[in-house]
């Protein structure tokens, strides 16, 4: 499809396990974002990529969280030693450019990966 694709859509894991969440952005979009959304809350910024590099990773909550985008397209969010508090929907979004002032600033979101840590 033409939209942002996220896999898996649902992931249930046990406390302490390692998890990878994948995001395939819209073709041609250079900017990619990861957000986390807890129940009843708005999306919370985690990290923003412009091309292959992380332009802003200040939203990552601690060093258990890491994200990569090695070829400037697909991105993987990696969570080590998962904790119950990591349970949330992880949203990925992309845009043509991170230079939002030059366009509508619209982010195109995927459907999210729902992570449940037991």
């Amino acid at each position, binding site marked *: 499809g033409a939209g942002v694709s996220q896999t898996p859509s649902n992931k249930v894991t046990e406390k302490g396990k390692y998890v990878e969440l994948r995001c395939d952005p819209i073709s041609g979009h250079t900017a990619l*974002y990861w957000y986390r959304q807890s129940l009843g809350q*708005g999306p919370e910024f985690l990290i923003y990529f412009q091309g292959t590099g992380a*332009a802003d990773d200040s939203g990552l909550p601690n060093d258990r969280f890491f994200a990569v985008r090695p070829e400037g397209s697909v991105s993987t969010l990696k969570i080590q030693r998962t904790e119950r508090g990591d349970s949330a929907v992880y949203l990925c979004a992309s845009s043509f450019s*991170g230079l939002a002032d030059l366009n509508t600033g*619209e982010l195109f979101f995927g459907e999210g990966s729902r992570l449940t840590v037991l």
Partner: protein
Amino acid sequence: SQKIEQNSEALNIQEGKTATLTCNYTNYSPAYLQWYRQDPGRGPVFLLLIRENEKEKRKERLKVTFDTTLKQSLFHITASQPADSATYLCASRARGSTLGRLYFGRGTQLTVWP
């Protein structure tokens, strides 16, 4: 710290009426405000953007205003329909912050009943 707030968690209105949702911000100056719609189990979908130098923006039945004095944006849906029922999120980027970083409110859940 920067804060963006949507004070109403839920709004229930009758079909045909105008829904008005509020977004307030404190401790920073947004370069722009965006509004998104989110349906259950889905990702947010962009609706409108209004910049700091704009007072009002319209798109079909949607209207958004930006009042920098009140530090507030209002989002209106006129002639509301049951299909408009969803959660509406406001988001903003502060001037001077990383271009990619948006701050989201917690959303207002709108229910339009027939």
